């Protein structure tokens, strides 16, 4: 019983530390507060149920981001690429409408900006600019080498520049 109590306390600390980043990550993949919340909650639940302890996880941040990323991919596979939930459906306690609408607008803007890129390139660019991850973390989440991440990044940025969607190079 006490072990469980400790485990829950530990989970609470982990949620507090990572929930904003994970929620934002999920939101910028699915475009919906409601669905993003559901996805992140499910990830934490599975994480709690699956893990006897958390000691073996080398990098908690990338471990959780990868889990959320996989859950978003599953979601899109099941329900389509993007599913915007009407504001009416959104839980009142999720956030105030104003913030949410701004975020949805921002999500749509970024989707539009990246929509002509192949998914593998837009994934890398999103992870860097939207989620603020470095190439090593990105490589870990995408299960590819750092070099692959870098080349996808360069190709993506080049394409965005060619289509005048961005004005600068963004190269490291």
């Amino acid at each position, binding site marked *: *019983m*006490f072990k*469980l*109590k400790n485990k*829950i306390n530990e*989970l*609470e600390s982990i*949620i*507090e530390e990572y*929930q*904003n980043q*994970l*929620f*934002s990550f999920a*939101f*910028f993949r699915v475009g919906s*507060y*409601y669905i*993003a*919340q*559901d996805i*992140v*909650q499910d990830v*934490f*639940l599975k994480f*709690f*149920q699956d893990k006897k302890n958390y000691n073996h996880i080398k990098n908690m941040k990338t471990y959780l981001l990868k889990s959320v990323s996989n859950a978003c991919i599953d979601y899109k596979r099941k329900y389509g690429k993007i599913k915007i*939930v009407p504001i009416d*459906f*959104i*839980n*009142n*306690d*999720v*956030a105030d409408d104003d*913030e*949410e609408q*701004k*975020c949805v607008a*921002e*999500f749509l803007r*970024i989707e539009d*900006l*990246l929509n002509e890129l192949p998914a593998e390139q837009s994934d890398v*660019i999103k992870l860097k*600019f*939207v989620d603020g991850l470095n190439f090593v973390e990105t490589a870990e989440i995408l299960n590819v080498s750092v070099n692959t991440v870098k080349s996808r990044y360069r190709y993506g940025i080049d394409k*965005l520049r060619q289509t005048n*969607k*961005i*004005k*600068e190079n*963004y190269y490291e």
Partner: protein
Amino acid sequence: MNEIIPKIKPSAPLSLKKNVINKIKMERNKMKKLKIKGLSAVAAIFVALLVLPFIFSANNEARAAMNMISESIDKSEDLKTMVMKYLMLTTPSENFDEIRYDADGSMIEHTATISFEGAHKWRLEKSGRTSVFDGVNSYSWVNEIGWMANGLTGFFGDFEKFLDPQNILRYEQQLAKDDGSEISMNENGNQIILTIKSKAKGDFKNDYAKNSSILESDNKRTYTFDRETKLLQALKVEILYNKKYETVFETTSILYNVSVDIDKLLARPNIEWVKLDKPLNNSLLTGIKSKEAAKLIFTALANKNIEPVKEAFIGWNMKTIELFFGLELIELGEPFKSGLYAGEYVPYKIKLANGKIKKFNIALRNDNENNVWVVDGGL
């Protein structure tokens, strides 16, 4: 430079952490929602209920144990008062007969004060709920919400059935058919310790209710009697969960024949009391299957008007009911029975007015006088 960087990033909703922890609690509750079948007025009642399967047990140790219990029952007959303090795995305002696993795993302190002089009077309290039986009526309240009924009601749990020793014996006879239990008796100085292990009882074709009560769990009860007085000194109940016994009930003190202030024992707040014992009449909720009843109930909640099915919510607090107003019924599954529950569970999936999806089993029963389906839980 900033085209790809979001100008605004969403923060995680305040409810996210709470939802995860609640879901964990709920999952645990599903497994560990335990109903301790009440609290006895006398040690004999505890003894009688929990050792029921062994009364007619053939082995010598069991026979010796039964003799011990019989002596304890005899000795308990002369009691004038009893004050028992115990810890239970539950929440502060939960029904007294239910043990619930809470996330922090804490045991809640309870005090039972009983007077056996004249008509038996009881008071059972914990921080969030109190119940009183004044010999005629039962009262139970949580904050400003109070319920009352004539006679003993479910306020004290199913133990009310066992207040009459003859009922105890009848019930013992009924359960004595079960021979799958193990009993051991040890002496320790001035104490006699009985340990009884029983297998879960009930119909578990669907195992939803497995571990939902002590009787529906593989459990172990440990009684400590005073060798000289033969009175119960302590009781501990554990249930087998994940191959390990976990304590769900444990007495911390049992005092006999202490001075009890009857006025204090019977004191109750000046609040409005909802009467629970009036016969239910509702033609809509009678003569139909549980699934149809569930549909009617959810439809009423969806329409924000429970008037047509208000009897289904007997004893429910309106504020709680209103949480479900405006819901959208997505799906109803096939009803099932499980364990010892007299009613049926109907699986459902709803979308609440706030957009949340809820998937659970509504517990409906119609074992009342007019067979009206009522909501027993699961919302």
